[in-house]
């Protein structure tokens, strides 16, 4: 019996080592492809930056101003924008080549090819979703915060946090869905969380805005009344109004 156990274990270890040995070259190929293309991208970007700087590309764009390219460029430099675009394009191409090489090192029916590769692409998509979701959440949170502060809302930070978490929860649910993790549990949890945040925000805004709405209504009533009286009794003295412009 011990011989059979020993045989089963050695077979299993052999199979695992064999799988690892066949897995490693594909992985190394992927890494090499990414690294080489990154180096190529850096080289291309540096060359391009030098050429564009020598031809005064930024100044030409600034002179023409036919498009707001500079507005979208890092440090206001279209040259830098193009260089970075070329660099990241090369990195992406390297990633594509690497995944293709990784895929080619397995037969079509192998479990790695059937399960791991689609999961890898899904994982990359999920990471991109997470990054984009985070950026959008931060941008919206800041926009809401500044808008609410300029509207003199006392609960500006709470509103901003609410919006931020709404987007983050949405992003989290999309990422998990993309990774096919959790299934219906994620959908259910997302529905509950999202609905809860929306309800909380609605209640907070509704309750918090009561005073603003009543002040606004009172002001309207005052204005209507004063308009009616002003026609009869124009004010004799008033404080000079502020004019910002």
């Amino acid at each position: 019996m011990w011989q059979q156990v020993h045989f089963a274990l050695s077979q299993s270890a052999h199979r695992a080592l064999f799988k690892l040995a066949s897995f490693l070259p594909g992985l190394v190929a992927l890494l090499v492809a990414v690294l080489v293309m990154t180096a190529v991208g850096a080289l291309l970007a540096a060359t391009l930056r030098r050429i564009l700087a020598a031809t005064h590309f930024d100044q030409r764009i600034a002179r023409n101003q036919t498009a707001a390219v500079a507005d979208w460029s890092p440090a206001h430099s279209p040259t830098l924008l193009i260089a970075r675009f070329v660099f990241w394009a090369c990195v992406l191409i390297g990633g594509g080549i690497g995944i293709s090489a990784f895929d080619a090192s397995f037969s079509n029916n192998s479990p790695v090819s059937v399960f791991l590769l689609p999961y890898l692409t899904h994982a990359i998509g999920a990471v991109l979703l997470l990054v984009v979701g985070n950026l959008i959440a931060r941008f919206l949170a800041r926009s809401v915060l500044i808008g609410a502060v300029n509207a003199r809302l006392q609960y500006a930070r709470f509103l901003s946090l609410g919006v931020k978490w709404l987007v983050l929860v949405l992003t989290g649910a999309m990422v998990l869905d993309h990774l096919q993790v959790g299934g219906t549990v994620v959908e259910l949890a997302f529905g509950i969380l999202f609905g809860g945040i929306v309800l909380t925000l609605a209640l907070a805004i509704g309750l918090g805005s009561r005073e603003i709405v009543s002040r606004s209504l009172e002001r309207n009533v005052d204005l209507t009344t004063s308009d009616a009286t002003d026609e009869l009794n124009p004010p004799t003295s008033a404080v000079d109004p502020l004019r910002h412009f």
Partner: protein
Amino acid sequence: MPFTNTTPDLAAASPAQNAAPPATSTAALLVSLPPQSADALHATLANLTLAFPHRSLLLATPADAPAPPHLATANLHLLTYPPVAAASIELVLPPARFIDADALAQQHQAATCLLLGPGAEVLPPSLLRSLAADSADLILPHYHLGAREGLVNSAILYPVTRALYGTRPRFPLAVDLGLSLRMAQRLANSAQRSLTAGHHEAILWPVAEAASANFLIAEVDGCPRQLPQPPSLDLNALLAHVAASLFADIDTKAAYWQRARPAQPLQPLRETPNPTPGVPDVTPMLEAFRIAYINLADIWSLVLPPNSLLGLKRLSQMPPTAFHMSDTLWTRIVYDFALAFRIRTINRGHLLGALTPLYLAWVASHILFTDAGTPAEQHISDLAATFERDKPYLVSRWRWPDRFNP
């Protein structure tokens, strides 16, 4: 759209007793008038006739303006320019006006251009004559505004323009301008670039343009003037629009203003009429600042150095009666925001939105300070002097933005 020429019939004579002495130049003067009502147009034409009785005048009005009254001057020629689409922000002369004025001036070989803004009917003949003098490339009026008017100009536009370009005009965004032909051409080129880029509501900065071209700039004593007000006063949007345009222009002309240049001599301070007794309610502005300090401190910390943040912290703790923002603090705030706009420390919309509460704090401080007895013009002049003294800070940070600045 082609420009059209019309010559008015001769009718009534201008009153001789108010006739002005002949202008220094007898060459044709192009006067570009804004869209005006019939009455306002009549008043403007009467003032112009009094101002230039012996000078050939080319009057340019929008094509869709009401028919001008018939005036009895043989040297008056009416022209039209394509009507300018109504802008949502009517604070300044739209770029199309500069292009049209330059085209008409070139076409009719005018020697000088006079661009007048909305409400120009109140400009007296003496001021019109001063604006049309050919002694400088750019002539701006020094309007007689109340102590609590034109606050954005007093807080940001005037001090920044004076400090960076060494120029003295109190209203860099004046809506009535006297331009030499080369100045009109330069402004038209700048306006054309803005329109080509699709910026139909771009703001042109004549003083900065003239300074960067080493043109002569002059300021003449103005008159009480109601500056054009936007139809709906959304301070956040308007301040962001004006500040963004100013900061972008500073960025464009960085190579010019970073070099030290002699400043124009200072004019004696003009006394502003005393405001009616009583202080406007500054509580909402102070409240806006305090709410902002609680919520926006994180965002301000990305833009402002620790020293300014400390100053803001102290300011947020001051009682309303003692509230005072020092000139140095405000100067640093404006300079640091200009720098953050350039290097895009944060999204530009967010950056300019975060400036509004700080501006309101300055307004509240200015009102309280002037109410305590300091003349408003004196305070603005001192503020501008602080901007001038602190210019090396901006130059230093502009060149080395990453260097630590306490």
